[in-house]
């Protein structure tokens, strides 16, 4: 137990985090590249065609992992915000700041791939489908958090404001999701549904699982990398950062 606590305490130190992340990052990058490559090749070339949608269903191998990440990143951003607000751990805030644009990008990818998928399946680019709608709202939540952080002239206030908003948002996400689901069933008869397909055979969902894992590794690797540069930027007046900069010329 003592070891775990000292590990957590050490994580709060930017210098220590900088060191440990340098050792972890290559593993996550390798895993991300291998998993995404394997999943893509398997999913795009070897998985069987869908008997209703033909080849167009293969967009699922980008769409679903992106949608997974879009939601998970918001939750991890709120958790990082909570850690920052309660224990004043700056690394948590740096990570949260770096996660927000990635999460917004993933939400956009999920929306865009959903729209592209909509053309062959629904015959239109956009439907006010419950999931598409709640994804769109999630994108607005991300944009709000990013804009709020940028609006403050003092970095510390911006960090704390963004943390509060991320926590408020994460409480609201399930409420928004369920109310949009309710609204959808109330107003629109489900003429087309992606979910009503029969359960996927193993050859279809195994590459999907690999892709999801690959995307998660990608997210961790990118967050570690970007947090490292943010540490250097924010701690640029510290001696250990200057020493690193000195070493590299």
């Amino acid at each position, binding site marked *: 137990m003592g070891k775990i606590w000292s590990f957590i305490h050490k994580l709060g130190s930017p210098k220590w985090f900088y060191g440990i992340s340098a050792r972890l990052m290559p593993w996550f990058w390798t895993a991300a590249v291998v998993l995404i490559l394997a999943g893509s090749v398997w999913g795009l070339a070897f998985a069987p065609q869908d008997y209703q949608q033909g080849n167009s269903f293969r967009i699922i191998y980008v769409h679903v992992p992106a949608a997974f990440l879009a939601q998970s990143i918001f939750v991890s951003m709120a958790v990082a915000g909570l850690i920052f607000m309660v224990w004043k751990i700056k690394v948590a805030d740096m990570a949260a700041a770096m996660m927000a644009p990635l999460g917004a990008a993933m939400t956009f990818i999920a929306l865009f791939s959903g729209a592209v998928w909509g053309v062959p399946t629904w015959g239109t680019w956009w439907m006010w489908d419950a999931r598409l709608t709640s994804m769109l709202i999630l994108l607005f939540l991300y944009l*709000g958090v990013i804009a709020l952080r940028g*609006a403050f002239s003092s970095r510390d*206030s911006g960090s704390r404001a963004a943390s509060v908003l991320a926590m*408020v948002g994460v*409480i*609201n996400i399930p409420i*928004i999701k369920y*109310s949009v689901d309710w*609204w959808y069933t109330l107003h629109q008869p489900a003429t087309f549904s992606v979910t009503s397909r029969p359960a996927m055979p193993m050859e279809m969902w195994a590459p999907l699982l690999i892709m999801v894992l690959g995307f998660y590794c990608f997210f961790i690797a990118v967050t570690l990398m970007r947090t490292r540069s943010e540490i250097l930027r924010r701690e640029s007046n510290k001696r250990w950062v200057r020493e690193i900069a000195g070493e590299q010329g």
Partner: protein
Amino acid sequence: MPSIDTRMSEGRQGSDGEPRGGLLVAVWATLKRDLTLLMRRRSEVLNPLVFFALVITLFPIGISPDPELLATIAPGLLWVAALLAALLSLDSLFRSDYEDGSLEQLLLTPQPLAMLGLAKVAVHWLLTGLPLALMAPLLGIMLALPSGSYLTLAFSLALGTASLSLIGAIGAALTVGLSRGGVLLSLLVLPLYIPVLIFGAGAVQAAIMGDGAAAHLAILGALLALSLMLAPWAIAASLRISING
């Protein structure tokens, strides 16, 4: 009329000079002070109502004056317009207090800031949400809203705008220290308003169809209970960030 300062000191002086009856007195004083201040700036109270009426006027002009078409979209139009009107008034919720320094005094009081913030939100609802709810049936007549749904419209708006005021106050507290917080405020708050809009407009539509408006109203009440429980803490934390920043 005795000034607020003497009222506060009346409550604070116990027999042994210790503060007494602190919380209720402070909340009551905040309520009275904000009501008095807002009643002296009537235009600020009237503006959202005029905005509401104006926006509703735009829709028949922009879409079609056909009563049948208007009747089908009226519940949504009324709710969206009322929501925007409530949003419009949010920016001034903490603004003048921030500028003249009374917000800092609120932070310094021994009473919990969450409760005092709640009192300010209550005043905002009394002078924005409630008038909007009372005015909505009138505009409903102009939009040919089917009869039988007027009471539900007013009630759902009264219930829903209370949640809107609470959620919106979090955004107002976060942006009060920013010079151009108005546009940002709408970006922060509007996504969080969507559940209230869904069940509010849904209640009116259900009343028109004649089934289950009560279920929608019950969920609106549940949303209000949840935001009553959680929003004051977020408002207090946000005010602290804005003051110290």
